[in-house]
């Protein structure tokens, strides 16, 4: 029995927001009479922590403590429109909606604060829930006092709304060319993995995974790391374990329960290293870019390369099961070359190609 170690890397990019834009999210904010902040938005928190991230954005935009902010995303009667939680749009686009709403509320707080303090609002700032004269910190009034005065004296509900919406990018159907960027920002990542391959059984274990993500600005680094680590395990599943159709394209023998569908579990967890880079986006909240979806994209190719580095075979049909590794090792041992060269064309995977499976009268094929 021989165990072989190998290393591989991959570098990827991923867009923020819905392809070709549009993609609105809206939010509105009202102040309670003690200055506490109610945010109503439609962004569903599917476990990624968007409510916490949005609260952080609102707290810093307004200049109030984080625990003053309550996010309500509970229903379509009170919450404003949101396209939805997909397309890695929650932090960037949903975040911009709550930021824009908070900027309007901030302006109104400063205007009323200016009236009460008899100071130009431009000379005021909000720090930790207090409106303070710049350069004269003794001249100040609490945001709660301003909200109370608005409610009981001025007869006003301090509120604000925000909409994040981008122009639609229309495309030329012949060339795919677009006139404006068809996304909001692009995030980048790289992943390095180390694997151990058992030459006798074909079993592959990921020993270590290092990952670098450019997220523009990590609004909450702990939750960014949560996305990276969770995504790493989903990527490991994609690369090595999971398959709805074990005999694809046949749909026989589908796994209908946890015992017959191999998802990654704690025993598959490798040593994980996360590195966050911050190359800010032009128009994301506080320079943020997306992290959500891309987090499971870099691992499968890095694993495939590491397996090649370990035992010298390519498996390009995912997942890379022990059976596929053993078949590839057998083919290699039998002297079957991994590629065929004709003139200057080097052709891998000929047996998988559409040209090896379709009939001569096929309407679409792939020729080089």
């Amino acid at each position: 029995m021989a165990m072989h170690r190998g290393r591989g890397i991959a570098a990827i990019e991923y867009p923020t927001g819905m392809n070709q834009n549009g993609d609105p999210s809206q939010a509105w904010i009202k102040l309670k009479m003690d200055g506490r902040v109610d945010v109503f938005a439609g962004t569903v928190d599917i476990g990624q922590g968007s409510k916490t991230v949005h609260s952080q954005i609102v707290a810093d935009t307004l200049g109030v403590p984080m625990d003053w902010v309550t996010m309500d995303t509970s229903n379509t009667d009170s919450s404003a429109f949101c396209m939805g939680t997909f397309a890695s749009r929650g932090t960037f686009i949903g975040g911009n909606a709550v930021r824009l709403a908070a900027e309007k509320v901030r302006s109104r707080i400063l205007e009323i604060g200016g009236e009460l303090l008899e100071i130009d609002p431009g000379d005021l700032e909000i720090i930790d829930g207090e409106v303070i004269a710049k350069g004269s910190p003794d001249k100040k009034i609490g945001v709660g006092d301003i909200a109370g005065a608005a409610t009981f004296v001025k007869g006003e509900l301090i509120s604000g709304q925000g909409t994040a919406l981008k122009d639609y990018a229309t495309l030329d159907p012949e060339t795919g060319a677009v006139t404006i960027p068809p996304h909001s920002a692009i995030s980048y990542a790289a992943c390095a993995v180390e694997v151990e391959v058992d030459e006798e059984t074909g079993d592959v274990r990921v020993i270590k995974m290092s990952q670098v993500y450019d997220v523009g600005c990590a609004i909450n680094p702990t939750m960014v790391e949560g996305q990276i680590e969770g995504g790493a395990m989903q990527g490991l599943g994609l690369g090595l374990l999971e398959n709805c159709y074990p005999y694809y394209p046949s749909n026989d023998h589908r796994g209908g329960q946890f015992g017959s569908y191999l998802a990654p579990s704690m025993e598959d967890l490798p040593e994980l290293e996360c590195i966050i880079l911050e190359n800010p986006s032009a128009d994301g909240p506080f320079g943020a870019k997306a992290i959500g979806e891309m987090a499971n994209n870099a691992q499968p190719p890095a694993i495939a390369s590491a397996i090649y580095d370990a035992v010298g075979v390519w498996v390009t049909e995912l997942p890379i099961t022990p059976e596929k590794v053993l078949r590839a090792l057998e083919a290699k041992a039998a002297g079957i070359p991994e590629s065929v060269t004709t003139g200057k064309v080097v052709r891998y995977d000929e047996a998988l190609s559409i040209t090896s499976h379709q009939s001569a009268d096929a309407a679409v094929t792939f020729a080089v």
Partner: protein
Amino acid sequence: MKAVGARLPRYDANEHVSAGTRYVDDVRIPGTLWAKALRSPHDHAEIVSIDTSAAEAMEGVHAVVTYKDVHKNIHGHIEGLGVPGDEPLLAETHVRYKGQPVAAVAADNEELAVRATEAIKVTYKELPSLLDVRKAFDGDAPQVHHWGNWYPHFEGEMDRRQIRKGDIDKAFEDADVIVQGVYRPAAIEHIPMETQVCQVVPEAGGRFVVYSATQAMYFSMGVVAAHLNWPLNKLKFVGGTTGGGFGGKVDTATETITTLLAIKSHRPVRWRWTRMEEFLCSSTRAPWHMEIADAVTKDGWILGRKMLTLHDAGAFARFSPYGVTKHAFHHTGAYTIPNLEFNGFVVYTNRIPTTAMRGFGVTSVSFATETHIERIAQTLGMDPIELRMKNATRLGDTSPNGIPYVDPSTVPVIQAISNAAGFELPAHYRTMTSAMRSGEDLPAHLVAQMGNPEDH
């Protein structure tokens, strides 16, 4: 204290791990009925007849619905983005995948609801099925839809998503080597801990409250309203807390049928899929078939790429045309390739429709392009990291659809991963930045593709 950048705990973390969070299935409303669906046992068949009379006559069965109960049975979830609907909410004349809902019932309890679905008599005439996307274009291939086996409604009524950039023929002529390969990631499940679930409650004034696990409340409300031809004020979605989605809960899989049952029975109705249904009848990530041929020079420049992508959509389009477009826009990965010929097809097969999942459209192409670049390096006998750095997107390089990159980070992420994992980079690449190309980093073949990042 600054909140942005702080390592703050999630507001709901304690509740999630101590069973304190109230999910859709935790909502208890007295008098709630159970829903169950009768699903197709065939991959592909014509429906000769549906007889629901025996189920309707059962005591404790309060509603049975078929396609006849739906105002607009075929509604595409992204009709607003120009993708016409092709999927019936409940099967009408044909079933096109095993597990497709044909009818649904609401009964006093779960067991009775199962027995009621078994009492519905459906006569089928089986048809040949198509499962291999590589055979979809054959003259004698089984036909999934009467209009054919691939989606015909991209802009300009084109039957494919195309990218054409630069001069692909010249790139292939000029190449020293052409490297070709095939990449096939599998379908996988979303596997949320919470299966598809919703509850619909009739309220005073004719409104219906939908307790939903959707990832997109307004989107799903729009889908239900479109099927029913209702204004939005007749519905209230209550949600925002989801027990795992990963893309699979954008499908609005349960809300419309459950609302139909609540309307017909005048009772609250709950539909919670079993784990078996979640595995066998819910949508999956798509399997993809990708073929790449790259025109490269001996010193490691990628001059051009030809690519064919077949996206196995399953029986209906759902979000697949959107996914293939996104895939096309990112088919050069984190690199600059100036000459492109890309053709992407949404191919129908007689399997469960595929849908969005984390990385939609791009997870597949990341696998293909990154594995392919390793093979190019191997063919050339070159360091794969050096090959990546050379072709890495830089400020002002343009994307497949001709937009200059304004915030590229391929260079710094590769530098950082090389440091972290102990890969040695040559000096030139240790000091490289994402700045606009010049000198030896700007060969003649990359000049024409440059754009001005200030334009955007």
